[in-house]
């Protein structure tokens, strides 16, 4: 008798999973569940949190106002950064901690150009679009610098970006000779506040445009496949004709562009800049958004929509904490606790233990029967 050749290494067939289990396995489950939890908390604690009213802003225009609008508005920079951060994380298995400092540089460049080197200007010295383009170019160059250190000199991303993290705000100050230029032209603030006659804050539109752009880019190019492939196995990607170094560099340049857009939104909110405070600690939030979105911080597979939802969750949490009068300076302590809980829960060791806990009663029941 001969038995047919059986492959003992064939994957063990898994029983079909229940709907609930598949749902909880989905990558977006954690950020959406966190969002739902926050919404629920606010609904119970104070339903007025969700009220949206029409108010007159300082210019006398009727605009929408309320916590929800403020979450959507204030999360803009974070969402834009989180998208770029997701790509960088996926390709290089590390995070860029210089995004806050780089935002200061981009903002500083834009302000310097529109103010024409003056401390306070009432009209723009050059067309806004050119100034923003210049900001984008400078920021992309700094992104390329980070990317080159990571890809070509093989320095761990967090350490490579430490350089710009240390120097960035000082460079921003140096660009404007340590003056704090103020742009009084109202049209400069359109991007950060409201367009005339439109009651919805402009940053919401800008963010939507960026999200749309990346949706299209992921659909109509191989950005997703290449980035993931390089992040998972650079050596194998190279043998399939990809240039892992170039792709890593590219993701850092893309993040640089995102940083410039975020920096532009941030400076056009107030028309001025404070080098040491602008976008302070935003790198932490951006990394948190990526992690919260269910993306492995070690790189590889990614889902930018997870990071986007993650970013809104963080802003939601921040706004909620503000509402309950947690001082802004103490905020990092609370967020740090959330980060630690999150990474601990997602640590493989803990996951395994949790899985064992779940499995143990099932096993015991089987043994009895």
């Amino acid at each position: 008798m001969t038995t047919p050749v059986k492959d003992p290494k064939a994957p063990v067939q898994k029983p079909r999973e229940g709907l609930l289990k598949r749902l909880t396995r989905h990558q977006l489950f954690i950020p959406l569940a966190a969002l739902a939890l926050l919404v629920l908390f606010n609904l119970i604690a104070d339903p007025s949190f969700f009220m949206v009213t029409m108010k007159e802003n300082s210019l006398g225009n009727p605009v929408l106002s309320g916590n929800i609008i403020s979450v959507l508005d204030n999360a803009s920079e974070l969402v834009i950064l989180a998208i770029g951060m997701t790509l960088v994380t996926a390709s290089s298995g590390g995070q860029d901690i210089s995004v806050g400092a780089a935002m200061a540089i981009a903002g500083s460049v834009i302000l310097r150009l529109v103010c024409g080197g003056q401390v306070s200007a009432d009209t723009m010295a050059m067309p806004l679009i050119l100034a923003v383009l210049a900001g984008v170019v400078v920021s992309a160059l700094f992104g390329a610098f980070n990317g080159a250190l990571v890809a070509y000199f093989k320095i761990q991303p967090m350490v490579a970006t430490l350089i710009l993290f240390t120097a960035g705000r000082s460079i921003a100050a140096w660009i404007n000779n340590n003056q704090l230029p103020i742009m009084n032209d109202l049209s400069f603030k359109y991007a950060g506040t409201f367009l005339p006659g439109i009651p919805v804050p402009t940053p919401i539109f800008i963010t939507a445009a960026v999200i749309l752009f990346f949706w299209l880019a992921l659909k109509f190019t191989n950005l997703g496949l290449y980035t993931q492939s390089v992040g998972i196995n650079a050596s194998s990607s190279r043998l399939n004709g990809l240039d892992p170094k170039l792709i890593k560099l590219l993701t850092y340049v893309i993040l640089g562009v995102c940083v410039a857009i975020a920096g532009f939104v941030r400076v056009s909110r107030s028309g001025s800049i404070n080098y040491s405070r602008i976008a302070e600690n935003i790198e932490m939030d951006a990394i948190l958004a990526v992690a919260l979105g269910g993306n492995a911080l070690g790189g590889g597979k990614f889902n930018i929509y997870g990071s986007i939802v993650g970013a809104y969750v963080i802003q939601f949490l921040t706004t909620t904490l503000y509402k309950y009068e947690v001082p802004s300076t103490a905020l990092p302590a609370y967020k740090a606790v959330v980060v630690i809980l999150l990474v601990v829960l997602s640590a493989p060791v803990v996951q395994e233990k949790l899985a064992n806990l779940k499995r143990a009663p099932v096993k015991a029941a089987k043994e009895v029967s």
Partner: protein
Amino acid sequence: MQEGAVLEMRGICKEFPGVRALHNVDFTLREGEIHALMGENGAGKSTLIKVLTGVHPKDGGEVHIKGIEGPAVIRSPQDAQNAGISTVYQEITLCPNLTVAENMYIGRTKGMGANWKAMNDGAGKILTSLGIPASPKQQLGSCSIAVQQMVAIARAVDMECKVLILDEPTSSLDEQEVVKLFGLMRDLKAKGVGIIFVTHFLEQVYEVCDRITVLRDGQLVGEYVIEDLPRVQLVSKMLGKELDDMADIKGETGGTAVSLEGDPVLEATGLCSNAGIKPFDFSIRKGEVTGFTGLLGSGRSECVRAIFGADHVTGGNVKMDGKAVKIRKPLDAMKKGIGYLPEDRKGDGIVGDLSVRENIILALQVMKGFFRPFSRAQAEAFADEYIKLLEIKTASSDTPIKSLSGGNQQKCILARWLLTDPKYLILDEPTRGIDIGTKIEIQKLVLKLAAEGKSVTFISSEIDEMLRTCSRLIVMRDRKAVGELNGEDLTQTKIMATIAGGDKE
């Protein structure tokens, strides 16, 4: 425990996600015995050893060690050391940034301090007595790989151990060093140490070993006294097939009847790369299957990597279809119609977390370009076609490739290259570490591709696989092409003689 046994393993089981690596394996080691642990790649030898040394926790079974009451608890390599088991692993498991002496003593001295003088003196004595050309104060990383391996062996034998495990220690050693090692093993055996010896070289087994335990596909095949098991039988036990079965393949497909006329598809002269191979010439015709053979580290992989542009090419000319071409990076080669299945499936082949579908279309997609992704439907069609064609066992084309078995992963990589419809396909060890059924399928596929008019280069550590598939063999030794065999010369003995060198007539 049995009389005279120093180590007994009973009913050892170990499962990795989706793979049953060991199933109910028994193993007994007696005092003063050299015991060979044999099996093909992926048979479970290394897993068994890693379970024994506490690197992997076992899922079931018991380990008994002489002098320890009841089942021994070994949860970490430290536990194993304390229980009297010392190990030399296949890969060098020393710290390159420490000195030679430290590497010999770290993790096994008593007290809090690090006594440099005692370490250097002790290490110096052992190094001299074993004739290892290294200074105790030298940083380990500055030694050659062979010396590093000898240091690892020196560390292991210097420990007062009951059990010594040598997991393929000879692959980086030259002949004299192997002789030295065998002398050492016999001395230890005389002192009553039990030695487990894992190797690929059958000659070495028959030279020093007393007993053989054979594993196959994670299961115990049997334990034999060496005199009772001739080589041919050992091989057939390892493979799980009678040798006659294997001879069938060539018969089925009618062999590689290739006309040796016609222009070469690819012709390389004086090719060399920064991976340290001597310049070599190579050419292949349409419908021809060639092979590179030689011992581990002889440079056969480096040759094909140079052809594909995987290593930095430092010199030489390549012509394809008679026209000179420049191949600087893999993409150049791919565009010229060359495909390359790399030797290290896990490290260079699969992209683990990506799905089977994405892995299959990857190469073709890269050739098509960044701005022209395949539609989902198109990609699925490609993947389904090849999953069916190559009988890839996967739940769906969406399954991450890393959850497939080795053989099925290899088929996906093959599918990746077949999808690009190459003129010339290089397969570097496509059959390593996969089950025998898939091995045969792959060999058949190679012959089929050749019959369809594609050129194939096939590399395998198993010479009979190459004999079955190749019509021409290039023999490598010391990173240099030393001979080319075809036709009548393609016999096991002739190949072995060429590998060994011209001095043996």
